[in-house]
């Protein structure tokens, strides 16, 4: 037997018997997870790819050196200023959302490193926590020197600390998934659903687009992160397998819930990037095509292998796939000052591409963009406010995203009375998830509740300040409405 294999398990799989506390005290169910199983039931927990701490440190050191070299070579102002302005918004959006999510993931992994029920699981989670700390730091480090060039890049750091609506929605998701979940829910929701099910959209789709657009820094950063994710995401399978054996109903329910919540998140972050912000020549496929390949096909195959049903809200997911992120993008375009990145007005070529990729649903959206065109034509370039909303928008009390579900003809918002308070949801799945665990969500104060309680201003300009935005940082149209096609009537 090779020497490494002789001692590897001494480090990664070393449990011990407790003498002055019982197992339930050491691993209380509230933190270790439901169903609570005795240690002997977890003894066969095994991860397919094993890594020692020494190997981890060596590998990560090499990755850090490689990334630093790329950052020094192609991460300078002159490199970034050559990028397409729409793509730069992809960078700003991702660089800001990564630290917000990844830092919460550090804590989630550390909790699993303490309360995971097998020592090998805990060891892998410990390495996962170090991974996520690195993923928090990579964008902060990469963008730090560029802030003096573009103030919006300061939001790489600022978003986490702000009350911008995207931060509120992001925190609502990651606080529950990464901070509020027990070790079992964390492993299934984060490692199996979020990371295994969805992050391929980022690591394969967006990496490919970054290469096409010539953004070597973003490409290398995603690649560097992906290799970490692939290692710690493997925690999900063995935990899920065990829960399927002992409590298949709970296993299915966790997959149902986190599949829907993850989809909503990726519809914003990846949907915007793939279908609007990436220049047409660099697009490798539509958001829908990537989701069909990596989620509908690949993730569904994984569910089949595990003997799980499709997630409960599968049909709602398929129905929303060609529509939801388009509704959200058109809405966000007309509220672009509420974000820290700029928006692209799709031109005739982009609209042809969208019509080809979304033949059933694009005709529902096209009139909205024609209306925006007419407003730009009437106001002229530079007059941002004429294509910008001034009325506060409404948010879902579950996903905390704008009520953009359904169709332009019929918004699917639903209302529920609970404990003498009215709640609104963008869709039936969000409503059902709330009603299944109202104690988990009912006290949350979204943007609208803060306005109604007098904690946040209703006036949009003042609300932007509350979000932490300034005239130097709030989002605009990338070309200030100065498009050739707007000057050509009848285009």
């Amino acid at each position, binding site marked *: 037997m090779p020497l490494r294999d002789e001692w590897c398990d001494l480090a990664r799989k070393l449990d011990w018997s407790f003498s002055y506390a019982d197992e339930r005290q050491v691993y209380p169910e509230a933190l270790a997870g439901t169903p609570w199983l005795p240690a002997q039931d977890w003894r066969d927990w095994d991860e397919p790819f094993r890594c020692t701490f020494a190997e981890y440190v060596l590998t990560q050191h090499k990755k850090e050196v490689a990334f630093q070299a790329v950052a020094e070579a192609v991460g300078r102002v002159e490199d970034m200023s050559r990028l397409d302005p729409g793509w730069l918004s992809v960078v700003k959006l991702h660089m800001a959302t990564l630290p917000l999510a990844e830092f919460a993931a550090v804590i989630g992994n550390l909790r699993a490193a303490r309360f995971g029920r097998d020592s090998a699981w805990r060891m892998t989670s410990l390495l996962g926590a170090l991974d996520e700390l690195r993923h928090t730091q990579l964008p902060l480090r990469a963008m730090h020197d560029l802030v003096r060039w573009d103030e919006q890049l300061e939001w790489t750091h600022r978003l986490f600390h702000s009350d911008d609506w995207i931060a509120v929605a992001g925190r609502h998701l990651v606080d529950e998934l990464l901070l509020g979940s027990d070790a079992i829910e964390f492993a299934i929701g984060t490692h199996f659903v979020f990371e295994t099910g969805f992050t391929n959209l980022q690591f394969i789709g967006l990496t490919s687009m970054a290469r096409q657009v010539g953004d070597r820094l973003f490409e290398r950063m995603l690649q560097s992160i992906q290799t970490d994710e692939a290692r710690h995401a493997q925690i999900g399978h063995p935990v899920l397998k065990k829960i399927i054996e002992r409590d298949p109903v709970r296993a299915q329910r966790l997959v149902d819930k986190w599949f829907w919540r993850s989809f909503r998140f990726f519809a914003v972050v990846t949907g915007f990037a793939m279908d609007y912000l990436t220049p047409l020549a660099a697009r490798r496929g539509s958001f829908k095509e990537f989701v069909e390949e990596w989620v509908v096909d690949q993730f569904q195959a994984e569910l089949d292998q595990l003997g799980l049903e499709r997630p409960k809200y599968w049909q709602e997911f398929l129905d929303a796939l060609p529509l939801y992120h388009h509704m959200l993008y058109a809405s966000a375009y007309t509220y672009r000052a509420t974000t820290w990145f700029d928006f692209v007005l799709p031109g005739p070529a982009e609209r042809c591409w969208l019509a080809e990729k979304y033949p059933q649903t694009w005709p529902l959206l096209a009139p909205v963009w024609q209306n*925006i065109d007419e407003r730009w034509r009437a106001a002229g370039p530079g007059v941002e406010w004429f294509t910008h909303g001034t009325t506060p928008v409404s948010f879902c009390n579950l996903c905390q995203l704008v009520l953009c579900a359904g169709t332009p003809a019929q918004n699917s918002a639903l209302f529920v009375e609970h404990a003498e308070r009215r709640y609104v949801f963008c869709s039936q799945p969000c409503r059902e998830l709330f009603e299944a665990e109202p104690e988990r969500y009912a006290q949350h104060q979204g943007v609208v509740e803060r306005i109604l309680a007098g904690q946040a201003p209703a006036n949009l300009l003042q609300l932007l300040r509350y979000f932490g935005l300034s005239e130097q940082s709030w989002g605009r149209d990338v070309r200030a409405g100065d498009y050739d096609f707007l000057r050509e009537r009848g285009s």
Partner: protein
Amino acid sequence: MALPLYAFVRGDTLGLVVLAPEHESIDELAQRLSRAAAPRVTLEGRLRVLHRGKPVAGVLTVMEAGIRALDRVDLVREADLG
């Protein structure tokens, strides 16, 4: 007193929160909603406000129409009513 209402304009991509004075007429509320959605959608012709899915007479005030805080109202073209 102004009531916060969840507002949905037919053809629009999102829901809005509007503040509607209780003594404002439903026709005035329709114009308020139309203006709020104007960057994305322009509804032409006579407009109707729906409350609980049913059209409300334009001459009534918000209060007379029984609209309460955080109710849902929809704005549609009269021509689109069945």
